[in-house]
C-alpha cells in the first residue's frame, strides 16, 4: 500500500524508474539507443560523403559550360587507368609518401631513443614538448620558411657551399624534405612511447645472455618497437599522400594527386572525384597491410 502511494505521489520518478526497468530487461534496445546518434554521424557524414564522392566519379561534364551531367559512365576511371600522366602522378605520389615515411622512421628512431631512454628522466617531458612545439606553428608558415631556406642563396645553399655543392632547389626532393619535417613529430611520439614502455629487464637479460648492443637492438628492441613505427607510418603516409600545398610552394613544377584534384575541382568535378578515390583506396590498402603488423592496436 505504501509503495503504491509513494509512486503515485512522485509520478515523474515512477516513469523514469519504469523506463529504466524496461531498458534493463532489453540490453539490445539499450545498445541501439546509445549507438544510434554516433553511428548516424559516422554513416551520414563520413561514409555518406565518401559514397557521394564515389558516385559522382561516374558522372560527366558538359565540355563547354563545365556543368555536371548526371549520366552514368565509367569514362573517368577509364581515363584514370589509361592516361599515362595520371598513372605517373599516382606512382609519384605513392613514392613521395613512402619516401617521407621511410625518412621519418630513420630520423625518429634515434631521436625517440634519446628522449625515452638516454636523457635524464626529468628532462624527458620537456624534450617531448620540444618535439611537439613545431605543431603549434601554422602549417603555411613552416612551409614558407622552407621555401626561404631552399631558395637560391638561401640557408641550404649557404650551408652546403663550403662542400662545393648547392642546395636541392625547388622540386621533388625539396617537397619530400619539407613533408618529412612537417610530419616527423607524428612518428616520434608513438616510437617514444613504445621505447619508454620497453621493460629494462629485457635489455639486461639480452646482455646477460651475451648479446652485444647491436644484437640486442636487432632481436629485442626492433621487434618490440615495430608496431609503433608502423602506427606512426600510418600518419606520415596518409598525411603525405593527401598533401598538395607543400608541393605547390616548394615542389617547383611537381604535381601530386592532390594538385590534380585541385585543378579539376572547378571544371571537371567528376574527374576530381575519380582522382580523389585513388588516395582513399591506397590508404585502405596501406591500413590493411599495417594491420598485419599489429600497428592498429598500438595506435
Amino acid at each position, binding site marked *: 500500500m505504501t509503495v503504491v502511494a509513494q509512486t503515485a505521489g512522485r509520478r515523474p520518478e515512477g516513469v523514469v524508474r519504469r523506463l529504466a526497468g524496461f531498458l534493463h530487461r532489453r540490453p539490445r534496445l539499450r545498445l541501439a539507443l546509445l549507438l544510434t546518434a554516433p553511428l548516424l554521424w559516422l*554513416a551520414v557524414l563520413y561514409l555518406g560523403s565518401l*559514397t557521394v564522392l564515389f558516385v559522382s566519379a561516374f558522372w560527366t561534364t558538359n565540355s*563547354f*559550360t563545365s*556543368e555536371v551531367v548526371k549520366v552514368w559512365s565509367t569514362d573517368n576511371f577509364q581515363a584514370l587507368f589509361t592516361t599515362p600522366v595520371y598513372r605517373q602522378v599516382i606512382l609519384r605520389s605513392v613514392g613521395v609518401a613512402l619516401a617521407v615515411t621511410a625518412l621519418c622512421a630513420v630520423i625518429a628512431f634515434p631521436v625517440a631513443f634519446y628522449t625515452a631512454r638516454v636523457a635524464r628522466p626529468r628532462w624527458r617531458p620537456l624534450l617531448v614538448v620540444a618535439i611537439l612545439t613545431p605543431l603549434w606553428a601554422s602549417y603555411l608558415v613552416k612551409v614558407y620558411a622552407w621555401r626561404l631556406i631552399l*631558395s637560391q642563396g638561401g640557408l641550404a645553399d649557404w650551408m652546403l657551399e663550403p662542400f662545393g655543392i648547392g642546395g636541392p*632547389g*625547388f622540386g621533388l626532393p625539396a617537397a619530400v624534405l619539407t613533408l618529412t619535417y612537417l610530419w616527423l613529430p607524428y612518428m616520434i611520439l608513438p616510437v617514444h612511447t613504445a621505447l619508454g614502455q620497453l621493460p629494462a629487464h629485457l635489455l639486461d637479460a639480452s646482455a646477460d645472455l651475451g648479446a652485444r648492443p647491436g644484437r640486442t637492438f636487432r632481436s629485442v628492441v626492433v621487434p618490440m618497437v615495430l608496431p609503433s613505427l608502423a602506427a606512426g607510418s600510418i600518419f606520415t603516409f596518409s598525411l603525405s599522400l593527401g598533401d598538395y600545398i607543400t608541393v605547390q610552394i616548394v615542389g*617547383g*613544377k611537381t604535381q601530386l594527386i592532390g594538385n590534380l584534384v585541385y585543378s579539376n575541382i572547378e571544371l571537371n568535378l567528376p574527374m576530381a572525384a575519380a582522382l580523389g578515390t585513388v588516395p582513399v583506396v591506397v590508404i585502405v590498402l596501406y591500413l590493411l597491410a599495417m594491420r598485419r603488423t599489429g600497428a592498429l592496436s598500438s595506435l
Partner: protein
Amino acid sequence: MRLTRTLQVAAAAALLLAATACGSSDSGGDAATGLNPPDIKAPTKLGKTEGAVNLIAWAGYVEDGSNDPKVDWVSDFEKQTGCQVNPKVAASSDEMVKLMKTGEYDAVSASGDASLRLIASGDAAPVNTDLVPNYKDVFPDLKMQAWNSVKGKAYGIPHGRGANLLMYNTQKVTPAPTSWAAVFDDAARYKGHVTAYDSPIYIADAALYLKATKPELGIKDPYALDQKQFDAAVALLKKQNADVGEYWGDYLKEVSAFKSGDSVVGTTWQVIANLATDEGAKVKAFVPEEGSTGWSDTWMVSAKAKHPNCAYKWLDWIVSPKVNAQVAEYFGEAPANAKACDMTSDKSFCTTYHAGDTAYWKNVAFWNTPIEQCLDGRTDVKCVPYAKWVQAWTEIKG
C-alpha cells in the same frame, strides 16, 4: 547489431536518393554548345534603384575600405545611389562562371576566358550601353570585341586591361631578350630557372609564339587552334617543361622567385614587375616582338538579375573617370576610360600601363574562351575546346 546495420543502410540510401533527386532538377546547360546565345532583351530604360546589388569580382575590384581604409570607392556609390553593395570575391574565371549560374548575383567582372561561356549559356544578358553614360569615354579599341559582344550585341562594359609580359633578370639574362624564344627555343640556357603562368590558358602563349615562328602551321588566333596546331603548341610546352623551375599561379610567389633568383626569365604581369622592382629585384618586363597575350575584363549583367537598375548604376560608376583610375591604380592595369588618365595619383600611370597606346594593344591577343566553333572564322575544321586545354595542361606539367 542487426538494427544498427539496417539503420546504416537506410541512412546511406536516403542520402543517395537526396543526391540524385537534387541532380535531376537542373539540366538546362546542354542546349548552349555553340555561340547562338538565347535571345535575351536588354532594358531600354532604367527604373528606380532596388536598394542593393550583388557583385562577383576579382580581388581588388570592389573595395569598400574594409581591406585598406584608404582604398574605398564603394561607400560613395552607396551614398549616391542608395544601392547597398554586396561583393563576392572569386579566385578564378571558373568560379565566376559557377557563381553566376546560381542566379543570386546581378553583375560580374568576367575575363575573356569566362565571358563567352556566360553569354552562350544565357547567364549573362546583353547590355544597353546607352544606359551607361560613361561608356562613351571608353577607349574605342575595347568596345565590341570578341570577348564582350556577340553578333553586334554588346554584353558588357570594359573595365580595364593588361598584357602578359616577358620579364627577365637583367643581371643573369644577357644579352637582353627581344623574343619569346627566351622561354621556348632558348629556354635551355636558363635550365631550372624559367617560369610560366600556371593555367591552361598559357597554351595560347605557345600558340602565339608558333604563329610567328612556324607560319606553316597557319595559326591566326591563338585561342582558335585546330588539332594539329594545338598538338604543336602542346609539344612546345612539353619541351619547355624540362627547363621550367616552377609555374606561378599566385603573383606574390613570382615576386619572391624573381627576388631570390629562383626564376630569371618568364611570363608576368605589369603589377608583378612593379612590385619586384620596388622590392629591389633587378628585372625588366616588356612585350616581345611576337606580341603577347593579355586580359581584358568586362562587367556583365546577369540574365536573372534581381537588381538590374542598381547593376547598371554600378557599371556606370566603375567606369567613371575617377573610380576607374582608382581601381586601375590599385590593381595595376590599364584603365578602360580614357578620361581616367587625368585622374590617377601617379601622373605617368597611363604611360607605364600603355592605357591609350593603340599600337601596343594591337600586339596583344586578349584571353578568350576556346570553343569547338573556331573563333577565327574557319568552318572547315573543328577547334579544340577549353576542356581539352585543361586536360593537356595536366599532361604538359607531367
